[in-house]
């Protein structure tokens, strides 16, 4: 999965929207233009929330077998983007609620709720990925047993099993 591309583009979008919001701080001399910008920012926040949710829902189904540390690192960064977007959406809401025009805040509120739920899902996945292994009573072969099995030739190289699978053969040698 092209994780870094997704993270870079989502992070860049959130930062750009944050900059756009900051630029409105001194725009009180143009109420009509300000209203339009606030409306657009609200729409952008709603869209961004949906995109982050889609990116998470689709993306997590596309992971190939990958070391958990690498997947965790990706979702830790993704979580930071969601947090930043949540913070931004809150600021946009505050700006809209105090504007002279009465905006319909419902879509923005729903998107903030979507982001909060998404945050919980991402954080839950991060925790699960690096949780300690559950206690297992299955005994580990002793070093002596491992060495004896190896000397008796009772083993396979992973490469041989892989090649057998790729040729349509069974996982377990018959």
């Amino acid at each position: 999965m092209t994780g870094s591309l997704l993270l870079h583009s989502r992070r860049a979008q959130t930062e750009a929207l944050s900059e756009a919001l900051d630029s409105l701080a001194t725009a009180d001399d143009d109420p009509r233009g300000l209203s339009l910008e606030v409306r657009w920012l609200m729409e952008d926040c709603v869209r961004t929330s949906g995109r982050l949710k889609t990116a998470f829902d689709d993306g997590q189904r596309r992971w190939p077998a990958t070391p958990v540390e690498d997947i965790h690192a990706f979702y830790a960064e993704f979580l930071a983007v969601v947090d930043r977007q949540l913070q931004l959406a809150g600021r946009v809401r505050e700006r809209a609620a105090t504007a002279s025009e009465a905006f319909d805040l419902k879509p923005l509120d729903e998107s903030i709720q979507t982001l909060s739920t998404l945050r919980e899902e991402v954080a839950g996945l991060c925790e699960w990925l690096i949780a300690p292994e559950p206690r297992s009573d299955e005994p580990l072969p002793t070093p002596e047993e491992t060495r004896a099995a190896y000397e008796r030739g009772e083993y396979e190289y992973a490469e041989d099993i892989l090649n057998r699978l790729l040729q349509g053969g069974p996982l377990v040698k018959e």
Partner: protein
Amino acid sequence: MTPVNWHTIVLPHMSSALRACGLSRDRLVMVLTALHHTLPEQAERLRQTRAPDQPDRCFLFRLAFADGPTWHRMAFWVDDATAPGLLFVKKLVHQPRTIP
């Protein structure tokens, strides 16, 4: 220091343990590819995560991936102390998690 050319060895009971996970064929191929390629390639990094119950002999190789509506997390106990250059996969703990 010359880097070790690691190779992955799978003990017979491990193949059965993998089969018991009920994965689709392409996901099995994916897991075996990780055992054959990723594990030896990243062994020096992965060996730092020692198995809590046998830290002197084994490290944990933990993989995750999605298969349809389910996440799978697999922890392999890998013995790097029995023979030079060989990584013996000795134990597997499999944990599925439904994707909401």
